[in-house]
């Protein structure tokens, strides 16, 4: 595979960093080189939060993303800040609440991520895993096996939430398929 650079952005507390860890973890379990970094403010909740994952067959030196192939933005603020970092033929995944600037050259998937979390799962806590499902569906086939993704989710979320989170992952895949 070619180097794949994925940026997940949202607001602190939405769990984008955990989603990135799960994805990078699955990458390593698959036998790829994977690196995960993040940047966040000093607040525990609120504020901008950004996590990055690079997957590659080759050694990864510079650990940050320069041009993202896939960008997830769960909030308007995150979209405004990061949409210019997406490569021209990249993939943008945004929550339906985000207003687009209208001059996107990349593929855009506007998905009801936050609403689905609330309506189907009665909690915003799974928005990150729904997003992860959408990213997984759109990042291309054959990069990471689905059972490895499920195992990675299972290992990294609290034990009593495993079912809810794996359901949320499936829901994200469905949303992305449209």
């Amino acid at each position, binding site marked *: 595979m070619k180097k794949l650079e994925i940026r997940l952005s949202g607001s602190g507390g939405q769990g984008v960093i955990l989603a990135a*860890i799960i994805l*990078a*973890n699955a*990458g*390593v*379990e*698959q*036998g790829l*080189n*994977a*690196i*995960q*970094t*993040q*940047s*966040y*403010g*000093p607040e525990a909740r609120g504020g901008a939060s950004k996590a990055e994952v690079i997957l590659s067959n080759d050694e*990864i*030196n*510079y*650990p*940050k993303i*320069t041009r993202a192939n896939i960008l997830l933005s769960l909030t308007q603020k995150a979209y405004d800040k990061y949409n210019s970092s997406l490569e021209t033929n990249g993939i943008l995944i945004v929550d339906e609440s985000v207003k687009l600037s209208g001059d996107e050259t990349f593929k855009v998937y506007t998905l009801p991520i936050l609403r689905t979390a609330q309506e189907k799962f009665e909690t915003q806590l799974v928005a990150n895993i729904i997003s992860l499902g959408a990213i997984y569906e759109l990042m291309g086939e054959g990069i990471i096996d689905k059972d490895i993704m499920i195992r990675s989710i299972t290992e990294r979320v609290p034990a009593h939430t495993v079912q809810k989170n794996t359901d949320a992952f499936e829901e994200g895949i469905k949303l992305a398929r449209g």
Partner: protein
Amino acid sequence: MNKEGYKLVQGNEACVEGALAAGMRFFAGYPITPSTEIAEISAEKLPALGGRFIQMEDELASMAAIIGGSLAGKKTMTATSGPGFSLMQENIGYAAITEIPCVVVNVQRGGPSTGLPTSPAQGEVMQAKWGTHGDHPAIALTPNSVQETFEYTVKAFNLAEKYRTPVIFLMDETVGHMREKMAFKDASEIEIIDRKKPTCKPEDYVAYRPDEDMIPPMAPFGEGYRYHVSGLTHDETGFPTNNNEISEKLVRRLVDKVDKNIDDFSYYEEYKLEDAEIVIIAYGGVSRSAKSAVDDLRKQNIKAGLFRPITIWPFLEKQVNKVSLNAKEIYVAEMNLGQYVLEVERIACKNCTVKSINKVNGELITPEEIVKAIGGNK
């Protein structure tokens, strides 16, 4: 764990795993971003191994506690970031003069003062050597990957034990917080060094009488060897003295036991240096950008290479001198306003041009910035 034995691990987690593998059984600390995971995971893992974790009231006390723990015979560590590292300085000097092994991890963040808690920086390179007052030995190691964090934390303990001195493990937020693959090593594959103990009877023990290797054997408190430990300049018994001759001899021995053994722990990486005319010197998180920059510059037919010190202190004079003999220009890239470059200039400026690439905005220097500074296209 995948088929090849790799797991996704965070830098700070790797530091704890390395410390435990090296034999750490006591950790005292005061949590601070971006080092907190080191305290957190130590607290979780130490009790199961018969070790102890204690959260102290501040960093002064944390440093004091790991000195006490080491004196009682355990391998000890603390972890902090800039503000805490400043508070630890007095007792780092105490550990140096009393020759008590311990490891002090500093995961560097933006400074000065409380600065940028969640952002990377490399502002404590000079502090790692000169932060505590008086002439004293200084060993500091800087990893640039999760795997290396594991392996060099083990080495930090080994050096502390072997040379009876505090060792600074100088990380940065980039390396501490990133996650990448790491291979867990079996205990049998890891070299572990333990401090030298006295073989004489307790009544014959002279606590600070060095062997020929300049290092005195160390008896743990509580095993019947009675001796005096003092931060005052002391004679071989450990009791304070004003004697000028003894004072001179002590300070010189403390420094020499480390500096004269530098060949034993000169750790570094050379990348595409064979024919390099442009040499980038970088360490820690920035060295990863520098390696990418070397590849980019090579694609533009610029003969670039990387020298990456892992042993930051003592300064690798011999290796940097050799690099400077073949280079036209050396660029030192670091997330501060020019610290390590001063040492590079001291050694290299007679042989080639030395320039500085600096950034203090809380972001890692990018490969593009390095390429641009050197004059390549990006």
